[in-house]
């Protein structure tokens, strides 16, 4: 009756494995030798170096610590170059940020706010400011960043005793960028046939708002011919210009859609 765990009973459908039934009680409740020997084996294995890591003194992400750690359970997988994939505190390169708002748009927790930061030449620029009290480190923002300026580092020590310190200003993330921590190198693959910006020509008034606010300057206003009004028909009051999107440069941030006063731009499949 005792079926070994390897046999498959003919009554069972294919692909089903019957596990071994419970061993009958041995009659002596004192038979505990095998578990005790198993525990003793582990005892001898962990005498020299247990599998735990003395955390504040040894850190897996510490480059100088890498290569040294080998514990009883083998080398932890996180040790080595793959630790670089870790999604920790963000680093922001202010100089390459194009203020496209994509990070703030893509944040599921709405923890990113675009704030003004001064740049060289007395100008200001809008860069993301992250509230780590809300952030869930999902990485959608760094996936969305078209310029690769908002990345995630391996730093995860955010502990603070005051709530305002959880808000990281762009300058603070810029200093993290300069600290040369390993950056998360993963880039999201973009779909090849991404939607592009389309124009409803009947509604456009040629106001130049989209071209003015486009962070990549990929929108140019081109002249369109002023049509001859049909008899009895009045031409619409507008500037006879129309935006043209350079699709190769467009990062699909949607700024033009949001600034358009006439709601004439929209997402659509590439014609």
């Amino acid at each position, binding site marked *: 009756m005792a079926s070994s765990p390897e046999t498959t009973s003919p009554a069972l459908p294919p692909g089903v494995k019957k596990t071994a039934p419970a061993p009958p009680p041995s009659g002596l409740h004192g038979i505990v030798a095998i578990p*005790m020997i198993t525990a003793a084996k582990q*005892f001898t294995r962990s005498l020299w170096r*247990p599998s735990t890591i003395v955390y504040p003194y040894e850190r897996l992400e510490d480059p100088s610590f890498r290569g040294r750690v080998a514990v*009883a359970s083998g080398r932890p997988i996180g040790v080595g170059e793959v630790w670089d994939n870790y999604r920790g505190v963000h680093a922001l390169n202010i100089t390459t940020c194009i203020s496209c708002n994509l990070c703030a748009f893509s944040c599921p927790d709405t923890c990113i706010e675009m704030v003004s930061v001064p740049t060289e030449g007395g100008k200001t620029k809008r860069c993301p400011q992250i509230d780590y009290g809300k952030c869930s480190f999902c990485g959608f923002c760094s996936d969305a960043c078209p310029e690769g300026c908002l990345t995630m580092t391996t730093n995860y020590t955010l502990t603070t005793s005051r709530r305002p310190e959880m808000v990281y200003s762009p300058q603070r993330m810029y200093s993290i960028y300069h600290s040369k921590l390993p950056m998360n190198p993963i880039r999201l693959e973009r779909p090849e046939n991404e939607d592009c910006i389309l124009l409803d020509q009947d509604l456009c008034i040629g106001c130049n708002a989209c071209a003015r606010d486009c962070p990549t300057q990929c929108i140019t206003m081109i002249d369109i011919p002023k049509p001859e009004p049909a008899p009895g028909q009045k031409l619409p009051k507008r500037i006879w210009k129309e935006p043209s999107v350079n699709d190769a440069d467009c990062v699909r941030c949607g700024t033009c859609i949001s600034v358009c006063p006439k709601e004439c731009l929209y997402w659509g499949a590439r014609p």
Partner: protein
Amino acid sequence: MSATLYDVAYWISSHLLGALGGLPASSLPGAWGVGATALAWLITAAVVFAASLVNILVLIWWERKLLGRFMDRRGAMHVGFAGLLQNLADGLKLFRKQVFSPREADPLGYYLAPTAYLITSIVLLGFLPVSAGFVAGAVPLSLLLALAIFSFAPLFIFVGSWSSNNKYSLIGGMRTAAQMVAYEIPLLLSVVSVVILSGSFDLGTIVQDQARDGWYGAPLILGLIVFSVAILAEIERIPFDLPEAEAELVEGWNTEYGGILFAMTMMTDYIRSLVGSYLVVLLFLGGWTLPTWGGLGILSSFPLSGILWFQVKTYIVFGVFVWVRAALPRVRTDQLLQIGWRRMLPLSLLNIAIAAGWVLAGWPHLTWPSV
């Protein structure tokens, strides 16, 4: 070499008081004599208490370190050398906490139970000999007294659990009562076998007999196992820690205790563990003596070597208890009682028969009857 700790303390206090009053230390009159006795008691109690506290700190450290290695981790390691003072820090933290009691609890029983539990356990250390002549108070029949006091605990546990007015505490207290009653009998019966071989109820004599005749753990291996299992149940350690089964009963009978009261119960648990290990060593493993075959006598020739080896043996026995804890799950209530009544009790009776057989065979000078 037979001066007890109390004798030493009395000698010190009587000379101290005699010097103060200008009286002869050997015959202090009236109230002076009573004072000297009281002072001697105080000194004795303080020494025993301090020794037991130090022992417990080291014992808990030893358990934590051992368990850590069994579990592939490190155990306490930051406070003091290798974490030796971690338990002191934990204890200080508990002592500093607010003492509170549930509103519906019965204050008398609630506060009395841990106190009495602690006191009765520390008293045990007062007359257990730790080496030849090293004993706080010499008591004839010390083995009987030790076992009698050892079995006080369920009463106080039950009082505490009842007074806590908590359902978990109550179930834990009931379990304690059932468990202790079930394991008291195998415990005593396995001790009987030792008494049969030794012929004495005095722990010092039993150890000296073992030094002469060989450790009783060898002829009474069954008794050693039964006694150890029963002691495991008495000191409520895994696999018999049902009164504190934290998975279902939160913290068992001391669920409602916090701060210093919890520290007291915790401390008492370890004092009882220490006493249990002492008893195993004293009764079955030769106490403070070591074999003297060949050149081994040199190991026990230096001063205070008895205390050293006694402690070493005790800690090894406790290490085995820890090993059991690391490897075995907790048994169930009915299984616990079943093991107690249906396995341990017959085994202990069999053990008595074995002991009687050894005596009939002429222990310790075996003269097998020629049939």
